[in-house]
Structure formats: C-alpha cells, structure tokens
C-alpha cells in the first residue's frame, strides 16, 4: 500500500480538527452538528485505511511495512527525522483507536446535549467538542505511529493536552477545572521520568529511534544501570498516563469530563498509551531484570489496589474508572510476565468492553440525569438494549467464557503464575473483586425498583436512548463477545511474533484441558458475581451490615486510602506551596530584595552622615588636609 495512505490515517483527524477549529467554529452556529459529521467521516475513512494497513501488515513477512522518513531538524550531531513505524503492534492499535473513536463520535451526536443539567443550550459546544476529539484522535494515532521516542513524546504530550481540555470541557464547574489540572500535572510528573529517560538514552546512544534502541538493548550495547534507569524512566511516563500506582489519582477525578470522553480517552485509548509505550520499548525492559520486575510489581499492586476502591464507590463512572486502573495494572503485569502479545491482547479486548461500559453509563445518565447508582435501579425493563449490552461488557470484564475478557485475562493469569507466583495471589483476589464490583453496578443500576433519578433533570421517567447511541453500543457489544476469538487460535500471538496457531475449536474447548487454572478463575469470578447477586439483587445479605463489619476497610477504600489527602493537602498545599515556597518567598522579599533595599537606604544614610562633614569651614578642611598629607608621608616612609 502507498505510504501516503498510512500518513492519511493520522492526517484525516488532524484535518478534521483544523477544518472545525478554523472554518466551522467561526462561521457556523453553535447548535449545528456539522462538526460531528466532519469528524465521523474523517474517522470512518481512517478506520478503513487502518483495516487495510492491518491486512497489509499481516500479509507482510516479517510483519512490518517501511515508510520513508522526513528530515525535521539538524543541529550538530542532532539529526531528527520524522518517520512512521508500522508493525503488528501499530496495526492493531490503529484499528482499536480509529474504531473506538468512530463509535464514540457517533454516540456523542445523540448524547452530548444532555450531559450536564446546568449547561445552557449555547454551551454544548459541538464545535469545541469535536475539534478536541479530532485533535485527540490524531495525536493518539501519532503516538501509535511514531518511530522515535522524541516524536512519540511530542504526541504523548498532545494527547495529554487533549485529555486536559476534555476533562475540563465543562470548565464552568470548579470540580471539572480542578480535575483537568490535576490530570495534567500528575501525568507530567510521570513525564519527567520519561523525558529524563529520553535524554539519558540520547546521551548514551545518540539516537531517538525506537528500532535502533531496541536493537542496541538486544545486542547488549545498551545495558547495565543505564538501561535500567532508562527503562524505569520510560515506565514512569507510562505509569502516569496509564494511571498506575502511585500516579493513579488523576483518573477517577477525570470522570468530570463528558462520558464519551471517558469512554474513548480514559478507558480505551489514552490510558492504554502507557501500556503501549512499555510494549513498544519492551526489549529495553527485558534486558533489565530490575525494570521488568518493577513493571510487574507496580502492575500487580495497581490491579488489586484499584479494584478494592471500586468495591465501594457509588458513582457508576467512578467504579468503572477504578476498574480501568485495575485492568491497566493487569496489562502491565501481562507485559512484564508474558510479553507483548499477552499484554496487548488484553488491551485490545479491554478497549471494546470498557468503552462499552462507559457508553452504557452514559446511556443510563441520559435516562436518569445522574451518575449516582443510589438513585437508579430497575432500568432493565425500560432500557433493554442498554441492559443487554452492559451485561455483555460486564461478563466480558469479569472474564466469563467464551467472552473476550476471558481469553486475555487467562493468559495473564497463566504467565503470572509462572513468573511471579506471589503476585498471582493478588491477581486472583482481583478476579474476584472485579466480578463483584461490576455486577454490583449491574444490579444496583438495572435490578430492583427505580429510585427516581435526578428529578431536576427529566429523570423521573427514564427511557431508552436514541438509536444513534444504541448502534455504537451494539457494535461494541458484538466486539466484546468476539474480539477474544482472535487468539483462540493463537493467531494474535503469532501476529505479534510469538507462538504457533492451531484450530479454532481446539482452542475454544481445549483451554480447559491443559491446566485447571481457567476453571479456577471462572469459579472465582462466578463466586464474585454470586456474592453481588446475593447482596444487591436477592438481598440475602445486607450491604450496610457488611459495611459496618469491615468498617475500617470500608472507610479506607471510600477515602481512596487517603492518598488524595496526602498528595494535595499534605505535600502540595502544606509542605510545598504553604511551606517551602512560602519560606522562599520570605527569603526573597526579606533577604534578597531586603539586601537591595538595605544597600539603597544604607547609601542614603551614609550620604547624609557624610554631608555633615561638608561644613564649609576652610579651617577644618585645612586641618583635614594636613592630617592626610602627614598620613601619606608616614605610609610612604614606612612601607616604601
């Protein structure tokens, strides 16, 4: 295929952004949906081109297409080229990004006007929304396509910018503005490590090119502490973007953004960029035991840690957000223990079912005017399509055979058991938690009696969402069922360069014959679902009673382990801004500037003192002159 076609995948949404920002927004009235149509058209074409790319890459051997580079900047030894890297990893990501983005943009056409009750008609801002969404998609595709760490970093930051703009989309709400700022700053903290790693790698190797760096790591030229530090730096950037412990705190707050944004950016694509980055540079990790172990441990801890908080949240989007963090932890663990194929396969499946969960939450909000599950219930009857798709996604997330989540989660469990038996215990507990919290959401939302919704926002009479929202959800639901089949045959792993393929039915049923692990995992997940049913649907057990028995744990989870408190109040507000920086300000005004003003007033005082010497009496001047001459003579006599 022509390389221009690959460039177009990135350029189409970029053009869409430019057209909306410079031509649509100034000249078309705000309520018009034309910006949405432009974005959707661009993405539809980009999606088709992505499929074409995928087909081409699958046909190529090895799975990679070369694209000519463009010279961008030359200073001294620094020669920066702009190029694309199109291998199997890229091809898969291209399809995921364009497909989910396309579905989300279609959904948004129906959803956006009802997102917030306090928005005025003029505020919906389709133009602004679709402009940022287009820019985001273009930047995300840039991250995926970039062939050098520098170019990747450029798009990486732009993706962060779009996330900032879209979280703060309802900027008149202080909570949204705060969440946007928090997201940007926390991810930038991670990016500090990423940038340092880029500097370190360039200083040692003189290149930013990912393929070259990977080659150097494999050849052993790039090794030892340099490699470890570089890998850990890269992981720090990835942990920021992918909300890994301890940089995860921004993602739950990011739910202040419009729900389709959460579906696209904070579930399927941008947060997965960290996982993608580690996958892209995995050879660097694989040649440093320390780095690889760090990734595994952080991934495992994040998985269980986030899931535990998901157990107690009452906001439907927040539960799904914690679920996302937890699943991203799985992916990191999968990369560290099983390699690119294992981690990315979960990313691939997760993108569809998690985006669907968010779109389902948005659909519920569309009907009830709230995200608080305590005001929901009984929606199964009035929203059958939303219920059916949500159930599909929930089963997939819980890892129920034969849905997609089962296949990728099983691979992660198997590889963890083999490489990190200790973490395996954590991960197994997480399987239970995952099934429990997502079915808690399902029962609270769809089962029982309707509790009224938000009366201020037409919530009294819930209704099914319009087709423009349902069609994307159904498409994603189908994918949540079938996307996992790609690797039932071993086809996905083989595409990523690992393992062999075998027959479909051998894989479909044979999975239970090799080891008892899949059966155990299924049983654990089933137990979680059953417990959720017992508490929230059948009400055999009282949620309040359990909450009071585990009071300390419940409080700890509900307050997110007090980490927000620690970061925002104790570290930032009290120690830094109120403490160290305030101290520096005191020094600045009192000592540094005080010295300046002190010199000035000292000169003034000295001047007025000296003025008194100028009495105008010649006798005194003569006396002084005489003393002076004598003094000089004495000095010359003794010294000279």
């Amino acid at each position, binding site marked *: 295929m022509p390389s221009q076609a690959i460039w177009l995948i990135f350029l189409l949404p970029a053009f869409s952004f430019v057209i909306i920002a410079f031509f649509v927004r100034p000249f078309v009235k705000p309520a018009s949906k034309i910006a949405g149509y432009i974005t959707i058209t661009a993405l539809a074409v980009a999606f088709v081109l992505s499929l074409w790319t995928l087909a081409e890459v699958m046909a190529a051997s090895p799975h990679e297409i070369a694209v000519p580079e463009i010279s961008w900047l030359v200073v*001294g030894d620094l020669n920066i080229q702009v190029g694309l890297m199109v291998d199997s990893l890229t091809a898969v990501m291209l399809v995921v990004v364009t497909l989910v983005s396309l579905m989300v943009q279609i959904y948004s056409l129906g959803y956006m006007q009802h997102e917030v009750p306090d928005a005025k008609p003029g505020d919906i801002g389709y133009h602004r929304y679709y402009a940022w969404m287009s820019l985001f998609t273009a930047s995300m595709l840039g991250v995926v396509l970039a062939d050098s760490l520098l170019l990747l970093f450029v798009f990486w*930051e732009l993706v962060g*910018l779009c996330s900032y703009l879209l979280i703060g989309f309802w900027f008149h709400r202080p909570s949204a503005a705060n969440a*946007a700022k928090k997201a940007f700053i926390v991810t930038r903290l991670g990016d500090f490590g990423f940038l340092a790693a880029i500097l370190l790698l360039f200083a040692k190797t003189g290149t930013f090119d990912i393929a070259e760096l990977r080659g150097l790591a494999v050849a052993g030229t790039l090794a030892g502490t340099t490699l470890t530090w570089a890998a850990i730096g890269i992981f720090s950037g990835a942990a920021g973007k992918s909300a890994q412990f301890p940089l995860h705190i921004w993602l739950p707050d990011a739910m202040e953004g419009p729900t389709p944004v959460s579906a696209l950016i904070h579930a399927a694509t941008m947060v997965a960029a960290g996982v993608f980055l580690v996958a892209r540079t995995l050879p660097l990790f694989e040649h440093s035991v320390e780095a690889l172990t760090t990734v595994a441990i952080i991934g495992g801890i994040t998985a269980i840690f986030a899931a535990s908080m998901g157990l107690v949240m009452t906001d439907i989007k927040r539960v799904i957000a914690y679920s996302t963090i937890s699943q991203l932890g799985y992916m990191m663990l999968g990369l560290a223990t099983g390699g690119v194929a294992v981690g990315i396969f979960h990313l691939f499946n997760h993108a569809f079912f998690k985006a669907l969960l968010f779109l389902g939450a948005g659909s519920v909000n569309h009907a009830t005017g709230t995200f608080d599950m305590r005001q929901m219930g009984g929606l199964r009857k009035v929203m059958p399509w939303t219920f059916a798709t949500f159930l599909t996604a929930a089963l997939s997330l819980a890892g129920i055979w034969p849905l997609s989540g089962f296949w990728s989660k099983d691979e992660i469990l198997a590889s963890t058991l083999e490489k990190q038996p200790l973490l395996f215990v954590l991960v197994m507990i997480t399987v239970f938690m995952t099934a429990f919290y997502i079915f808690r959401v399902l029962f609270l939302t769809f089962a029982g009696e309707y509790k009224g919704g938000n009366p201020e926002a037409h919530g009294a009479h819930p209704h099914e969402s319009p087709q423009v929202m349902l069609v994307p959800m159904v498409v994603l639901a189908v994918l949540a069922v079938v996307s996992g089949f790609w690797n039932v045959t071993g086809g996905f792993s083989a595409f990523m360069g690992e393992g062999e393929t075998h027959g479909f039915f051998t894989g479909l049923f044979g999975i239970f014959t090799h080891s008892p692990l899949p059966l155990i995992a299924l049983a654990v997940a089933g137990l979680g679902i059953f417990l959720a049913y017992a508490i929230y649907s059948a009400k055999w057990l009282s949620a309040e009673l359990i909450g009071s028995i585990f009071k300390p744990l419940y409080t700890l989870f509900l307050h997110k382990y007090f980490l927000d408190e620690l970061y925002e109040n104790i570290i930032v507000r009290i120690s830094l801004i109120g403490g160290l920086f305030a101290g520096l300000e005191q020094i600045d005004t009192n000592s540094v500037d005080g010295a300046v003003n002190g010199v000035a007033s000292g000169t003034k005082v000295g001047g007025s003192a000296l003025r008194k010497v100028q009495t105008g009496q010649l006798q005194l001047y003569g006396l002084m002159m005489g003393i002076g001459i004598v003094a000089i003579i004495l000095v010359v006599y003794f010294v000279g």
Partner: protein
Amino acid sequence: MSFPYLTAIVFLPVVGAIIIALLGNGRPRLVKYLAAVFTIIPLLLAVILFANFDKSSAAAGIMQFAEKTSWIPTLNAFYHLGVDGLSLPLVILTTFLGVVVVLLSWKEQLRVRQYFVWLLLLETSILGVFSSLDLLLFFVFWEIEIIPMYFLISIWGSGRKEYSAMKYVIYTLFGSAFMLAGILSLYFTTGSLDMVELSQKGLGMIQTVMPAAAIFFLLIIGFAIKLPVVPLHTWLPDAHTDAPTAGSVMLAGALIKMGGYGIIRIVASIFPQVARDYAPLLLTLAVISVLYGAALTLRQNDLKRMIAYSSVSHMGFVLLGIFALGEISLTGAALQMVSHGLLTGLLFAMAGLMIHNTHERDLRKLGGLARQVPIIAVVFSIAGLGSLGLPTTSGFAAEFLIFVGSFSSTVVNGIQVFTILAVIGVVLAAGYILWMIQRVFYGPPKEQYNSVKDADVLERVYMVAFVALIMLVGIYPAILTDIIKLGVSPIVGLLGG
C-alpha cells in the same frame, strides 16, 4: 556600498521619535500612525535581512550586512554594525515586538506624544545592542535603553511605579558600572574594542597582569542582572509588574534577552577558558533560577507578577543552555530567548488586555472569564501552554534542545545532574501555568464581568501574528536553528565542545 540595512533598522524608530517629538500637541492619531509606520518598516527590513541571509555553512561565524566606519579614531572605536546567526533572530524578534507594542498601545490616552517617543527610542536602543560589533557602541546603546524605560514605568505604569522605575535604573546602572569596568579592562589590555576581533584572537590579546577571570566577572555581572540570574533578579518582578503593558512586553520580550545575548557574544566567546572553569558555578545559579523562580511563581496572586516570576525561571534555562557549553545546548539557549520573547510577550500582552478590560489584576478576584472573553482565553492558553513547553509550540522546541544539548554535553562534568534538576522546572511550570489559567478563566462566570469586552480587531491581528510565529517555530524550529547554528558553531569551536 549596498543599502545600509542595519543602520536603517536600528535608527528608523528614533527618526520616527524625533518627528513625533517635533509635532505639535493634539494630534494623537497622527502620532500613532507615525509610530506604526516607523516600526513596521524596520520589521519589513528585518524580514528582508532574514530572506537574504546567507544560510550556507560557509557563512558560519561571518558577520553579514556589516557596516564599519571610523567613529572615534583616538580610541580605536568604530561605528560597526553586523548580524550573524545569533543576533539576527533577536533583531527580528525586537522589530516584531516593536510593532506589537505600538498596536497594543493604540488606546493610550495619557501624554500620547511623549509615550510613543520613549517607546520608539527604546526600540532603537535594543536593536542597537543586538547589532553592535564595537564594545563602546554596544555600551552606549545598552545605557540609552535605561532612559525610555524609566519614563515608561514611572509615568505610564501602575502600583508602586516610581519605586519600581528607580529600582530598575539603579540596578541596571549598578550592573553597567561593572560592565564598563570590564570593557575598559578589555580595552586597556588588548587595545581593541572590536567584538569580532576579540573573540577570534581571544585571550591571546590579553597581555597584562589583569587576570582574565576578573574581567570575565566584571562583564558577567551586568549581563546577569539583565537576564536575570538569582539572586540579582529582584528588580524584574517590580519593573514588569508596574510597567505599562507595552513596557512589560518589551522588557520581557526583548530587553532581558540583551543579558543572554551579551553572555554568549561577549563573555563566553572572549573568555572560553574561564567560562569552562566557572561553568559549575553558573550552572548552579541557573538551576537555582529555574527552581526558585518557579517556586515563587506559585506564590503570586497578581497576574502580571506571576508571569514576571515565571520569566526568572525560564531565563534560567537560557543560562543552563549557555554554560553547558555544547553546540546543541547553546543553540537551544538562543532559540529559547526568541521563544520566550514570543511566549512571554504574548502572555504580558494578554494579561495587560485582561487588566485593561476587567480593571482587575488580583487572581483571587478573577475567574470564569472563559465564557465572557473566549478569544482572549484561547490565546492566553496557547501562550501558557507554550510556556509550559507543550510540543508544537516554540517553548518545547527550545527547552528540549537545551535539555538534550546540556545532558549530552561533554564539556562540563556533572552536567547531567544540573540538567535533570532543571527539568523539574518544567513540572512546576505545568503547575503554575494551569493554575493561572484556571484562576482567570475557569469556574462559574461572575456577573461583574458580564460586560467585559473581548479582543477587538486590532488586538486580534497581533494575537494571530504571535500565535502563528509560536507555532511556526514550534513545528519547524529549523527555520531559526539553521541560522542560529551558524552563529553558535564558531563559539563552540572556541569552547572546545
């Protein structure tokens, strides 16, 4: 002899100033049009220079468009102008800002004639500094700049304007006294005032007992005050905050670049060996400037003061890039000066516009303005994002070059530690910039600002120009770095990097 481009560029503003001064009172519109004409022509001439500048690598280290005439023969002083890759971008930046400050002063009503006279004289003096190749001429332009700045702050300023203006003058004169001592020492030890000759022959020309390091420090104090380098920075927040908008834009945009330019052109290229010896000291000050400036920025509640302190932090990157003494890092430092001129120039222009339209500068009282002034909000945000080093803006290109260049520089030991510490400044920058944007523009709209006007046509013109240049340099930095490296490479050759 070909057309004296540089003389025209440097002196046209002052010619305009003289014509305006000779006009009678009561014709403010004519004054403004004249000011516009006499700043636009230098800008166009500067663009012509840029287009005709020899960008081939053979031109490295050669002063182009040079003009040399004997000026004071007994002193061996010449009227000697010329530009190379280092100074040309700064000349273009200054002529651009010269036009902008005239446009953004279009609504000025207080003593209009006098105001524009000072503004034009200011432009001439800054351009003179960037294009002089004779130390005495350089020093004369350097000193002239103080006069218009003093009047601009003390008459058209706000707040403690007399205090700030006086502080600015005394601080600058204090620095210039050292600088003059340095220049005289150079002159008496070498007998030359020619900057090109001095840097080419270097220390070989110094023949007396006066140690080179002493001259180095005499010179650098004056430049360090202007840049500014902590702890010599306290004039800057006061002057920037209390100056009128045009004054702040000129100060932050062009004037403080004279410090960085002087350090590269005079200090580092004439004393490469001393620069290497004392690089750790200056790098320490650079890192302190970056972090200390950023920390103090986070403590400010005044819109302009916040931007002013952020300048201290950003100019610390320039010092880092210079004293890392590598080719890439020096190129980055030179690019950062241009980039900061554009970004902070735009930030001050927007802040001035906000203060003018809302009559409020306290960040605690502003808020929710994104809905009332969407255009200003967008442009302010772009400038802010550039300032925190977002890719596709000039800020990223410049800071990234500084970081890469410094980290991989082989001239100074331990440079990696300094670089990484300075990179923390970028994280803090994200903090203060986003916080500033949030405090001004986000949150619920406030009723008292409902009638606040957004940017008018004239203001949109310069906003678009600023944003276009910021993005141009950000997306295709080679447009400047291809020139800058011609000016930097001979200096690097002297430094042995």
